[in-house]
């Protein structure tokens, strides 16, 4: 890919990640949630990989971090589900209705689920993209 495409992907990549994090965190007030935000974040990585090639992307972002994130987020989700009954009214107040800090324990579910979807999609994409590298 030539210089214009590579520079454009390098500039757009952090903005796409930021938009994906916004869709995930605001999942309890606006339409969105785990799957939409996770797909948007994985789409940012796909654009960077298509413009720069798989080798340079592996050097830039280590994939050990992806494995660690996947296992840690799965463990946190299981813990959240088991202890959700105690966390429900202790963490977030249930009187405020239209602000961000409302909806007891839904924001944590959305963040953890978004990280799970994002790492799962990244793992699928890198395995299929690496079968074509010589």
């Amino acid at each position: 890919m030539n210089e214009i495409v590579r520079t454009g992907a390098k500039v757009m990549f952090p903005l796409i990640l930021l938009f994906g994090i916004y869709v995930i965190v605001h999942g309890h007030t606006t339409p969105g949630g785990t799957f939409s935000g996770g797909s948007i974040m994985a789409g940012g990585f796909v654009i960077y990989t298509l413009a720069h090639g798989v080798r340079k992307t592996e050097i830039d972002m280590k994939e050990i971090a992806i494995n660690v994130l996947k296992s840690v987020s799965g463990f946190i989700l299981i813990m959240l589900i088991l202890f959700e009954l105690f966390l429900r009214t202790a963490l977030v107040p249930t009187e405020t209705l239209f602000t961000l800090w409302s909806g007891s324990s839904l924001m944590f579910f959305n963040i953890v689920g978004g990280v799970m979807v994002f790492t799962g999609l990244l793992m699928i994409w890198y395995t299929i993209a690496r079968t074509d590298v010589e």
Partner: protein
Amino acid sequence: MNEKIKLPVGLGCIVIVLGFMIFSIFNAGFAQWESKSIAGFFINEGWRQLSATNTVTTIVWEYRGYDTLGEETILFTAAMGVFAIGAGLFAAEKTQSSREKATLSPSVKEPVKA
């Protein structure tokens, strides 16, 4: 599957699916879905009990959370399956030259005429 039974079976599937859809359109259940569906409880009580304004998110994570747990399990299983087959392909292509990568078993190139 034989060539002779492919066409009637395909047409039969299409007829069954379209018949089910047309029957469900003209059923009288659409006009009274508020008394026949469970959505009345979710709409009235969802945002009061949980104080979150997105009703779909409260259904997905609070009232039907078990289905979401199973869906995340399926997502992780597919990712691990893809990684397992991909690791095998990556190791197999390292030990082969690039010229004969696509013909691992050369006896299959000519199809046997039955």
